[in-house]
């Protein structure tokens, strides 16, 4: 962890409660969730972007279990700098489940676009790639007559560590309430290949990129903090007493706060008596 410069406050140390994982129960709930929510939309098929990472592997395999592998279309969407290993891992998941698959190389459209904007930095390029992949998934969801299955986990969603309308876009997301730590445990349970579980998490935005190096802290540490802060509602003082550095708590809190916009609909100016999502309120499952 790169941010532990200050020791915790004096006083009795507070024991950190372990994040529960219960993989068999999560497996049961999430497969039923996928089956239920997908079928309510009038289909039993999904499309998922398979990167070769643990999140998309878990999502795809849960969907295969819930809907049958024949109803899952996995789309690999590499860019020329994407790692070969990621593609191999994606192929392993496809092979072990028997789901349908497709590869769409996004290099041509990305390179043509950035020829016009050569000054774009890595962040802009990464975001553009994420959004390019999203448009491909939605296009194929129409062709495949299935929903786009999300792969974002709770850690990423809380930290805002994802691209709005890119990898954060989906119709149904089974992992959005699971911390990365829980995703890893679930991955073991459902038989995701070990190499995928063990490797360093990466959005594969550029060669050698890893999530933890970019964020400056590890998933286990931040999951523990988020679990106590968000789920169990520990106060700042209690978090310090549990041994979290003040700077770490502050940084993570800021990330959660500043990314709130990514977890909400765009701001709508209220003019009428009933405004969408404010006082015009219906469940998404309306009539289903």
């Amino acid at each position: 962890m790169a941010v532990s410069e200050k020791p915790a406050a004096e006083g009795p140390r507070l024991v950190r409660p372990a994040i529960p994982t219960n993989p068999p129960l999560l497996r049961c709930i999430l497969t039923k969730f996928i089956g239920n929510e997908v079928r309510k939309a009038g289909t039993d098929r999904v499309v998922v972007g398979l990167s070769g990472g643990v999140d998309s592997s878990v999502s795809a395999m849960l969907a295969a279990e819930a809907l049958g592998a024949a109803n899952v279309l996995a789309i690999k969407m590499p860019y020329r700098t994407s790692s070969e290993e990621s593609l191999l891992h994606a192929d392993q998941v496809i092979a072990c489940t028997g789901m349908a698959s497709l590869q769409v190389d996004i290099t041509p459209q990305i390179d043509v676009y950035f020829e016009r904007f050569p000054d774009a930095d890595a962040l802009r390029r990464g975001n553009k790639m994420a959004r390019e992949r999203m448009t491909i998934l939605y296009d194929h969801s129409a062709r495949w007559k299935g929903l786009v299955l999300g792969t974002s986990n709770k850690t990423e969603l809380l930290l805002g560590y994802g691209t709005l309308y890119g990898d954060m876009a989906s119709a149904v997301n089974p992992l959005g309430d699971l911390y990365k730590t829980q995703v890893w445990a679930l991955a073991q349970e459902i038989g995701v290949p070990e190499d995928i579980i063990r490797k360093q998490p990466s959005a594969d935005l550029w060669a050698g990129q890893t999530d933890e190096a970019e964020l400056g802290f590890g998933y286990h540490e931040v999951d523990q903090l988020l679990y106590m802060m968000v789920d169990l509602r520990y106060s700042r003082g209690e978090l310090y007493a549990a041994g979290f550095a003040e700077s770490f708590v502050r940084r993570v809190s800021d990330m959660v706060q500043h990314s709130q916009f990514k977890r909400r609909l765009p701001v709508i100016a209220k003019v009428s008596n009933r405004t969408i999502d404010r006082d015009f309120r219906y469940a998404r499952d309306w009539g289903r």
Partner: protein
Amino acid sequence: MATTQFTVAVAQINPRLGDLEANLVLYEERAKAARGLGADLVVFPELSLTGYFLKDMVSTVALQLDAPEVKRLAELSRKGGLIAGLVEETSDYRFYNSAVYFEDGKIVHVHRKAYLPTYGLFDEGRYLARGDRIRSFDSRFGRCAMLICEDMWHPSTLCIAALDGALVVFCPSASPLRGISDQHEQDDNARYWELINATYAQTFALFLVYANRVGFEDGIGFWGGSEIIDPTGVRLSKGRYYEEDLIVGEINLKSARRQRVISPLLRDENIDLTINELARIRGRMGVTSSESAGPLAVAPSEERPALRTRRVSRPARKR
């Protein structure tokens, strides 16, 4: 003449949100299946005629008790009892989360949910009016009471029902699954419910018929696990978790008698002590008796809840 022995069924269903017709068909199918299993009475979950997270749909799916849809439900009770969960609309256009007990083609009793959860994922207080009474009622299966889901998380409701003579409490529920722990096969909410169901049944020496729903609404799942508990706290029947099911259980009211002989807690209940102490506590909380709904003496005696035309005045609260 009430029977002391009968078979109760719980239809653990997954209704469609806001689709009354589809859910009526589901009711008809399950009621028929329950009769096929020998059930004298079938209990459906909370708001299972409409779905739970209705939000602005509440007024759209609400039914006055003389509505044709309610008559269809009444028809289902020609050969036995039936408990439905629906949004009840009153003649002055208030909307209640209600459980309706039908028998012989007629409405025998209506319970309006008294405790509307409006915290966390719940939003009932925003859309629904609050019921203001808990009454036991006589049925062909003896004296019963109905409580809806969150009502049961307030132990006073069970106590009132038991003191009002209920030997069977029906609890239609739409309990969401939430919280996981290691080493437990069900979510935390399911385990808490099972704990209170068994505890209440034994404490108040009555049968407890808990009817929970399943399925997902906007990603929020309902855990099922309906159950029928006898007055010793023993589970007579159990529904599957997270899946639709239809369970039946044999109820013999004599076992409530045995339990009340062995453990006469209700006999020894000191109502005056409770009333006096609650009145004292209410005073400490700053509500005088003239501002309150008043003691039991002013409560109407009829079984069907009468509409209160004048709201009880309470100290002004900052909004």
